[in-house]
């Protein structure tokens, strides 16, 4: 199986240049974790974005979605070990 690089913020695999923020392969975070100006979202912004995705697409309870997002992000290089403020 091919070893695939992923977003340092959310872990999404990069499958095409368009997956990178601003379609710039030099950026190691994805389009979902970028602000409109192309900079990396803050931890809280990325957390809110990911938990919102879980709620919107799969109907996950808001508190559970936030926990799932925090657990996923805690394993990514940009946020390793970080936990959300209560």
């Amino acid at each position, binding site marked *: 199986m091919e070893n695939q690089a992923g977003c340092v913020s959310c872990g999404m695999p990069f499958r095409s240049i368009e997956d990178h923020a601003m379609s710039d392969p030099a950026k190691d975070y994805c389009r979902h974790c970028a602000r409109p100006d192309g900079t990396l979202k803050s931890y809280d912004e990325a957390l809110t974005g990911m938990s919102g995705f879980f709620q919107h697409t799969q*109907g996950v309870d808001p508190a559970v979605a936030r926990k799932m997002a925090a657990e996923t992000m805690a394993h990514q290089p940009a946020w390793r070990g970080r936990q959300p403020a209560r």
Partner: protein
Amino acid sequence: MKRAEQKAETRRRVLTAATRLVEKRGFQRTRTADVARATRLSHGAVFVHFQSKRALELAVARALGRVLTDRIHALAQEGASFREVLQAHLRCLEEHEELYARLLVEGPLLPKGFSQTWTGIQSAVSHHLLRVAEPAMAAGTIKRQPPHLLFNTWIGLVHHYVVNRKLFAPNGSVLRKHGRMLVDHYLALVTP
């Protein structure tokens, strides 16, 4: 072959053997001793590559997660119709039906890290379904409804057939046998 390559190759062999055994017996009934026998390694050698049975189980689940998410992405490309995305999803699952069924049934008993793999798989599928379905709902070609219910209704239908596959298709793949019926039925439900 260099030592590091040999180690990586042995790890792959262990993972492949474990995957095959899990497909046949499930996670709970797959013993590390059987994995060692299938790979012609000593029992202890398995633990050089995977620290525990749980670590090996997680690796099996994660490998499937990567394969499924890559595959759905490859099959459900831009421009695909809603029907084509549903068919792509079933095709991905059919290719790994036995292992996916094991994950469905035994997943809640697997170690904590498993939930991330499960969420990752369903996130990829929901992303591709809703990428097509949300514009279609806005255009009125799919009944308007909360996006998560559109997704969960499909997933509930598919998972019921996969979990109970021996009832619906005792001699083979339930998705090969009934996939077209599931897609047709679901589309009839969600199309105005």
